[in-house]
């Protein structure tokens, strides 16, 4: 019996009303770590990515807790230490940023959930290029090893942006070479994943599924992949140029050889601004799935959401200069970049309006993923709207490099990416592991994350407008209250994440067996077993719209949602007529 499809009427007397998971699934089909390491199965690769990015999230989070603790008290030039010296503080924030950006946020959703879910949402057996997929995972690991090398060798204090001449102008540290290498290798991992996704979405859609019949998560991944393939090479080129500059003393970025440090900033943000959308777009995709599923409504404005992803990807390439309004860049360029930045706000706004409109007349079920979905609307609302202040040249001159910027991009990055990541993990946890997590603890943790997050970052907006510069190990007394509130918020947020890790791991051993479709979602992955077969589907999934929730009916907690009989019958008749 294939997943959620009822092929014969259930007979309670014969025990037919109980969902029996597959005896052999993708997790237990092959045994041994060796088998995992060389697997071509997109699901196993997705799970390994999920483990790796979660590790990165916790590591980056640990650095965040350390740096927030250092900022509990002002510190002075004479007595700078709360828990660490200025130099250690500088390493904390550099490593927090670098680990979070390069190891968690950029690969996070596409590599873990994208890998696992994308082929299943297409009803396919795997990605189009499974070996390339394995290679991408290995590159990610090699990159991570280099990052661990940076930690072991004493850390790095350049900031994640690696601006010269601070980073590369003086005696070059070994850890900087390691960081360059890590970013370079991780870039290739990212490019290969993006390439694989594009090919898969073009070549492996089942008959009857056009581009407009794909779940919006896939449209988001498509737009993301385009950026990964087109923008990531630029960061590789930039780091390459920097190395060439050192080896041959050719002036590119360093003034001492006749180069220009602002040029590095152009190169860097030409990648790193689109990279912001590499981070956000998949999160928006997960968000579309969550909002639709838990409102039991067709997403409002499907095409608008789909094309706004592409529009964001396209405009996102031409706004990088807004990171450099006060760098000495020409003011004319500044005004043009400001204008373009305002344009990119529109497609993001369209998505938010469409999500809210999707809720209208739905049946809204506040399961854990949906709480993250609502958090997303709120936090992304704050993050997106505060972007308008920063897009204005006149306000940006004051706010640039203050805590206002810190608060803004954490609202966007964490508000959207972390929320969608956690929401997506809960949404697909039953599918990936075959276990249900504790709904009670799920909701508690979601509320902790929400409250902690607001307390951590709302005060930073005010500190920022009042002039608190970023990357300060010590600060003036007048900012103390904002920093202390923020630190307490960070602890709460940390507690939320710890609760989460605890009950999710607990659910692996003690969680209830998950039905194939616990949420009544309609994209194709829910027609597989939980956890799925090695080949994903034991019978050909019935292709239908990703938001046709009317096709499903709720049977019981144990069976979850199953396809209505008439839907199955109609499709069978249609299929026969075709032959």
């Amino acid at each position: 019996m294939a997943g959620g499809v009822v092929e014969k009427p259930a007979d309670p007397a014969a025990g037919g009303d109980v969902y029996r998971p597959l005896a052999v699934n993708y997790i237990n089909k092959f045994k041994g770590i060796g088998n995992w390491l060389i697997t071509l199965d997109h699901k196993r690769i997705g799970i390994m990515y999920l483990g790796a990015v979660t590790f990165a999230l916790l590591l980056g989070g640990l650095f965040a807790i350390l740096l927030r603790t250092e900022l509990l008290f002002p510190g002075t030039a004479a007595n700078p230490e709360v828990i660490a010296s200025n130099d250690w503080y500088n390493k904390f924030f550099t490593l927090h940023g670098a680990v979070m950006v390069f190891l968690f946020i950029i690969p996070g959703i596409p590599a873990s959930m994208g890998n696992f879910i994308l082929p299943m949402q297409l009803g396919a057996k795997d990605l189009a290029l499974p070996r390339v997929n394995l290679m991408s995972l290995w590159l990610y690991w090699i990159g991570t090893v280099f990052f661990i090398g940076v930690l072991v060798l004493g850390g790095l204090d350049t900031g994640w942006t690696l601006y010269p001449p601070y980073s590369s102008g003086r005696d070059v540290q070994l850890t900087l070479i390691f960081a360059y290498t890590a970013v370079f290798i991780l870039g290739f991992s990212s490019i290969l994943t993006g390439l694989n996704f594009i090919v898969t979405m073009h070549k492996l859609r089942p008959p009857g599924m056009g581009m407009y019949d794909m779940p919006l998560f896939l449209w988001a991944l498509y737009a993301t992949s385009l950026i990964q393939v087109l923008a990531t090479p630029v960061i590789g080129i930039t780091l390459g140029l920097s190395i060439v500059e050192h080896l041959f003393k050719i002036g590119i970025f360093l003034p001492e050889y006749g180069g220009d440090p602002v040029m590095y900033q152009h190169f860097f943000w030409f990648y790193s601004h689109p990279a912001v959308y590499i981070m956000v777009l998949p999160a928006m995709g997960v968000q579309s799935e969550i909002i639709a599923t838990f409102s039991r409504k067709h997403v409002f404005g499907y095409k608008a959401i789909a094309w706004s992803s592409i529009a964001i990807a396209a405009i996102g390439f031409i706004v990088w200069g807004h990171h450099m309004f006060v760098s000495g860049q020409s003011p004319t360029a500044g005004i043009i970049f400001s204008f373009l930045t305002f344009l990119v706000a529109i497609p993001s706004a369209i998505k938010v309006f469409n999500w809210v409109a999707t809720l209208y007349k739905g049946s809204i079920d506040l399961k854990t993923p949906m709480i993250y979905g609502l958090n997303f609307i709120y936090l992304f609302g704050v993050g997106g709207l505060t972007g308008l202040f920063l897009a204005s040249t006149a306000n940006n001159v004051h706010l640039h490099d203050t805590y206002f910027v810190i608060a803004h991009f954490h609202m966007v990055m964490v508000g959207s990416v972390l929320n969608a990541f956690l929401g997506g993990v809960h949404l697909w946890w039953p599918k990936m592991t075959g276990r249900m997590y504790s709904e009670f603890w799920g909701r508690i943790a979601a509320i902790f994350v929400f409250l902690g997050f607001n307390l951590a970052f709302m005060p930073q907006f005010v500190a920022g407008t009042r002039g608190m510069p970023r990357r300060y190990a010590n600060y003036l007394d007048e900012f103390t209250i904002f920093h202390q509130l923020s630190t307490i918020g960070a602890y709460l947020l940390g507690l939320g994440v710890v609760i989460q890790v605890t009950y999710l791991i607990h659910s692996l051993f003690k969680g209830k067996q998950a039905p194939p479709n616990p949420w009544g979602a309609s994209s194709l992955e829910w027609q597989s077993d939980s956890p799925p077969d090695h080949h994903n589907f034991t019978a050909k999934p019935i292709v239908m719209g990703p938001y046709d929730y009317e096709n499903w009916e709720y049977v019981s907690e144990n069976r979850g949602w199953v396809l209505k009989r008439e839907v199955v019958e109609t499709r069978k008749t249609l299929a026969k007529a075709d032959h």
Partner: protein
Amino acid sequence: MTSVLSSLGNALPLARSGSYWFPPQASDVAAGHDFLYDFTLWLCIVFFVAICGATVYFTLKYRKRLGHEAVRTATHNTKLELAWSIGPLMLLMAIFGISTYWYLHMISPPKDEYVHQIDVNAQRWNWTFKIKGEGLDGTYECAKLHLIKDRPYQIVMTTPDNDVIHSLFIPAFRLKQDCVPGRYNKLWFRPTMTHDEAGLEDGFDLFCTEYCGTGHSDMITKVMVYNTEAEWKAGVVADGDLTTKPALDRGRMIYERLCKSCHTIDGSALIGPSFKGLWGKSKEMESGASHKVDSSAEGRTYLRESVLTPGKEIVKGYPNQMTPFTWGDKTDSYLEGIEAYLESLKD
């Protein structure tokens, strides 16, 4: 458009002593900046309340419960979607317009009056403001920025080639500009309030806002704005002319200004060796040679080289990171001060 905005700017309620969000408005662009901020803020609040209000309302009204089913509504509505795309776009263009108006003001110094120039040199981790002008016999190198109210100033800034990027930020002026090695960046402003009027006896804050390493968060100084030229002159001379002070005071002030971020006086090592107990003790160098600072000819030569060409001999175990200092005709006087100060720190 321009004149409307300009009169708007003048008619703004002056939150001169500072608001919930901002420090006092002490330059002639501050009011415009704050107006733009408030304008954007209120637009954002309207949209935010609408979005979150609708979300909460729908969540409560259409919550899952017995007897309630989702209703299939339209999957799209072109008119509605166009309206909520084009409407916000117009508002964004309004923000862009106001922003650009004020930005043009921020980057265009007045053409019809004399603009006083101050050169700024930023280096790890201190600021040097080279101030000259009527009533001053030459250029004074000050640790604080001294200005006269209502005069336009043009700051021309740079940082040495072997240093790193810094950024000059005066929150009360709402202005900021990076100091980039190999470039001369500029920034003009007109202070409209003295630090006394703002109730800030020590002056307005001036921060470094481009990350520059260990002492980044201590690279803070003050902006002093005076009513009269006489007050200003007194401030500049007291700050900038160390040569008139007794040698020991001179040395201490130079230390506070230029040395403190890397050298302690309590015996602990920072970037460079501590000054405590340095006097008269031989130290081994990376080159293998040995040097000490004292009042002998050799000791003074070593001290001079350590300040003017610090990369020449490096004390063993410390990085070669110090920026060379150039003091022109004040060199001898300053070295004399440093020597007196070091002697006062001997064990």
